[in-house]
């Protein structure tokens, strides 16, 4: 799939040199570490580099590519990104189902370190957020950017650098956790060198994005790109500030964050909640704003509403992280600010969700008939529901009940399963046939099956976790008539068993749907009838 065919002669040399550089980097890392996780990661980078040396070196002296490639969009990186999206989806969702099962069946794991719940849980979260979500965002951003700019990607090497480099980051992160290496900051557990590597990848991504945008043939930048830009820029900001750390040595994975105590808690949840905002919301709203109108054949309902919601989301979200720290040692005023902005955030969030749903006016018959469009509709509905729930849970007295319970887990999954994953699947089912030069996916029935498994799974999961969380919260604070606590902690654990079983079933249904999707996409890509039929605007040479 990593074809050198479209690369120009100079680009092939650059790609070859970069592959060589990666192999050397891996060798240096492995040599500096000598042993431990960093040495393993160095070896992984070196092997990947050597593989790429063969891939790029083999094509170094082939015939140059035809110039007519510039009359098309460059979709090979998107295809690779979608394949990686689906690989990560299956791996990370399977790990999620497995760790969910362990909460019901704690003896179900062999007594070896790497299968332990605590090590696998970040594999699930990183694999889903960064592996599944991140690949989907990068892959679709290349697609959407080119179409809305009516221009081909600025060049051919950096899209591969971004995708391969990004996946190396994900692989370093999750393999580190199972080997026992973690920074322990939630959703930012990867070690210092992986964090540095991601910064390099991200800068290349940003430069590629801006260079391609500069070639656009439309004077206006389409709304989807505002969100992709917000995603790229703010995630960079969050990632850098949250991960500033001092390594224990240049040859070891261990490091200590410069932040400590209450300061670290504030930075962590400023990062943590804005990972939700700018990774799991802004990027996917970009997908929604492009694929929903394309699939439904209707223009976005209100341009003004999209402006209001965009700037509302960019401005308000950054304030809300402190709602994760109600009643803790964080200064009270910071908690109050977080709560206030969380409630205000409902306005731009519902403006975006309402704008999406109103866009479907006049296309409801398509929502009924087309499972792909239905994925996007359900995504918009869950986006509205989760943002309402989020604002609600951020209110201090509500949070006193819900915090630390499975209600939070239910809330996160109503967002990630119901909103993020649904919009990704809707986008994938739109893009994959197009990139295969086909009218539709190979199996429409499989999309229906996937849709109902996904919706059913999401509902079973979230409803059981809502119940679990509320029961937990009420049991913890219940007093008997003598003024003593009614329940010991372990009684609240025992009460969770049926809910934990139900959530495992819900997660399993969702995973089955993802497997069906992966099979369908593979079959469709293999039955490709050519490339995407749409073309960029190309300046004609002067007579």
């Amino acid at each position, binding site marked *: 799939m990593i074809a050198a065919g479209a690369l120009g002669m100079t680009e092939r040399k650059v790609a070859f040199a970069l592959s060589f550089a990666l192999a050397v980097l891996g060798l240096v890392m492995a040599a500096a570490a000598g042993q431990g996780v960093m040495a393993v990661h160095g070896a992984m980078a070196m092997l990947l580099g050597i593989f790429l040396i063969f891939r790029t070196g083999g094509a170094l002296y082939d015939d140059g590519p035809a110039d007519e490639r510039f009359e098309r969009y460059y979709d090979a990186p998107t295809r690779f990104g979608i394949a990686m999206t689906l690989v990560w989806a299956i791996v990370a969702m399977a790990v999620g189902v497995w760790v969910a099962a362990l*909460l019901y069946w*704690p*003896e179900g794991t062999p*007594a070896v370190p790497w299968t*332990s*719940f*605590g090590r696998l*849980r*970040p594999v699930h979260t990183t694999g889903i957020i960064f592996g599944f979500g991140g690949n989907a965002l990068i892959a679709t951003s290349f697609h959407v950017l080119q179409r809305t700019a009516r221009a081909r990607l600025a060049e051919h090497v950096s899209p591969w650098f971004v995708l391969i480099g990004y996946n190396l980051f994900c692989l370093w992160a999750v393999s580190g956790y199972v080997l*026992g*290496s*973690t*920074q*322990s900051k*939630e959703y930012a557990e990867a070690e210092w060198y992986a964090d540095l590597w991601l910064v390099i990848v991200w800068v290349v991504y940003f430069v590629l994005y*801006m260079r391609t945008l500069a070639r656009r043939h439309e*004077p206006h*930048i389409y709304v989807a790109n*505002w969100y992709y*830009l917000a995603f790229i*820029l*703010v995630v960079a*900001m969050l990632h850098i500030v949250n991960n500033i750390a*001092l390594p*224990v040595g240049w040859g070891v994975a*261990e*490091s*200590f964050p410069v932040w*400590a*105590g209450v*300061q*670290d*808690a*504030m930075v962590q949840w*400023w990062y943590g909640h804005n990972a939700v905002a700018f990774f799991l919301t802004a990027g996917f709203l970009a997908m929604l704003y492009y694929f929903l109108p394309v699939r439904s054949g209707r223009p976005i309902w209100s341009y003004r509403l999209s*402006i209001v919601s965009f*700037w509302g989301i*960019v*401005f308000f*979200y*950054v*304030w*809300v*992280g402190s709602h*994760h*720290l109600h*009643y*803790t*040692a964080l*200064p009270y005023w*910071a908690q109050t600010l977080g709560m206030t902005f969380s409630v205000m955030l409902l306005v731009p969030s519902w403006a975006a969700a309402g704008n999406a749903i109103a866009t479907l006016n006049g296309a409801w018959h398509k929502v009924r008939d087309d499972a792909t469009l239905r994925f996007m509709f359900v995504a918009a509905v869950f986006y509205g529901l989760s943002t309402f729930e989020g604002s609600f849970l951020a209110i201090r007295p509500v949070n006193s009940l819900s*915090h*630390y*319970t499975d209600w*939070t887990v239910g809330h996160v999954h109503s967002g990630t399963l119901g909103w993020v994953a649904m919009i990704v699947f809707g986008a994938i089912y739109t893009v994959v046939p197009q990139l295969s030069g086909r009218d539709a996916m190979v199996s429409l029935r499989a999309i229906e099956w996937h849709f109902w498994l996904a919706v059913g799974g999401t509902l079973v999961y979230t409803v059981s976790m809502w119940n679990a969380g509320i029961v*937990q919260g009420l049991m*913890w604070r219940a*007093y008997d008539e003598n003024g003593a606590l009614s329940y010991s*902690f372990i009684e609240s*654990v025992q009460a969770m068993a049926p809910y934990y079983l139900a959530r495992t079933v819900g997660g399993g249904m969702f995973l089955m749907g993802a497997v069906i999707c992966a099979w369908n996409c593979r079959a469709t890509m293999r039955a490709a009838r050519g490339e995407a039929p749409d073309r960029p605007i190309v300046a004609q040479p002067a007579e």
Partner: protein
Amino acid sequence: MLKLHYNLEKLSMGLVVAIIVAASIGGIVEIAPLFTIDETVEIPDDLRPHTPLELAGREIYMREGCYACHSQMVRSLADELDRYGPYSLASESAYDHPMLWGSKRTGPDLARLGEKYSDAWHVQHLIDPRSVVPASIMPAYPWLMRRLDTGLLRDSMATLARLGVPYGDDAVAAAQADALAQARPDSDGVDGVFERYGEDVAVRAFDGDPAVLTEMDAVVAYLQSLGRLTDAPYGILAGEDGE
């Protein structure tokens, strides 16, 4: 405003700058004041940093992902005070890089765990949780009985010292010896541990065997230190502090 945006969306760099500005304000307002942490968080006189052995245990606590199911932050709510003890103070985690406040209680909060159970209970509970708490859903950690690798301790403490944790040069130099001595109550090095970390530090054969320093020693030493690095929170609850 809409007109401003209408013009902005024709300029890619303009959008970039506007996004950075809009997204920076909230973070700056909430985070920047915390940089005056020295003035806003009063460090109690009796607050001590973790001993090398506890620090090693803390690293294992993070490695095994314990923080995913256990918080270390008692909120200022009546039922939490009754269940766990005094609410957590900001100063208690002032030396924690990173903090381990946690976000989920699949198991109970651990901020006040220290000296609540015996060492033997912890060892048994970590090796086979259901042998002491039949309904527990905690994973078992039998591999903690392996030998503790103290090779990185000195560099770790030196790094923390550079970040402002009050480890003196002698404490850094004695990191490995102190770790060993804390789990060997009869050894000569014990005096050094008391001298550097105070007389209240628990010096015991945590896993029951003073001959071999295991990961279990480190983890149990860490768990027994939770909530016991300062007496400040207990004083506030008893009204001694006048707050």
